[in-house]
């Protein structure tokens, strides 16, 4: 397909002041492209949660986005500690976030459930000690 747009973002480690920059940047690009605001909102929420997870649990990571006329695909890849029990991690309310993160208002255990809720296709692959890759698609 020739009419696809590729975007790539680096998520910095341990930097809560910059977490959200990738999502904000993608959101404003999608708005400029004239994408339906409800779809833009879904993408922004799903990606922000992923970005925050990379900052909290991994050491940052990389997000690749492919925009086509049919869908927006986000691939979030980190080299963090990995997730031992994905089913448990997917449960609303389950969180391993430390206290300093909770004091910022995170750690409600809603990150992964939100990512699944706001994407039309959601896939997570993780290996302990290697890292986690989350792929999300939102249909146009």
């Amino acid at each position, binding site marked *: 397909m020739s009419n696809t747009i590729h975007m790539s973002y680096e998520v910095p480690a341990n930097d*809560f*002041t910059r*977490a*959200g920059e990738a*999502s*904000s940047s993608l*959101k404003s690009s999608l708005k400029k492209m004239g994408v339906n*605001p409800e779809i833009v*909102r879904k993408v*922004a*929420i799903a990606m*922000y*949660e992923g970005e*925050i997870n990379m900052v909290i649990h991994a050491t940052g990571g990389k997000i690749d986005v492919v925009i086509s006329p049919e869908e927006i695909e986000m691939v979030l890849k980190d080299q963090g500690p990995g997730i031992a029990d994905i089913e448990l991690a997917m449960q609303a309310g389950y969180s391993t976030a430390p206290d300093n993160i909770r004091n*910022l*208002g*995170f750690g*409600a*255990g*809603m*990150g992964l*459930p*939100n990512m699944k*809720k*706001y994407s039309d296709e959601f896939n997570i692959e993780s290996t302990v000690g290697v890292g986690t890759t989350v792929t999300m698609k939102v249909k146009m």
Partner: protein
Amino acid sequence: MKVLDLVQDGSFKVLNEGNNLEREIRAPYCCDLLSVAMGRMPADSAWVTVMGNINTLAVATLADAACIILAEGSHLDDPALNKAKQQEITVFETELPIFEAAFIVYQKLHA
């Protein structure tokens, strides 16, 4: 009710005037857990919270809040205030409890 109406009304102290004053507020929304707010907050909400850090601003932007109302005497820290100015997000402050602040918005919407 527009964000501008809330700015002019004086119920809350205006901490930062954003670039979206003509935006319609749809409802008040109360929550301090950012991921819950992110997942549940309707677009165009007047978001009442005590969380005044930089991530509050990011959530407000990404979840399309109309404005932020910091209740219970909470404030934005300096990085958050800079972000609000830079991103032109309207932020109010009030000493009122969360419920009372949200109720004021609710009453104005249903007056």
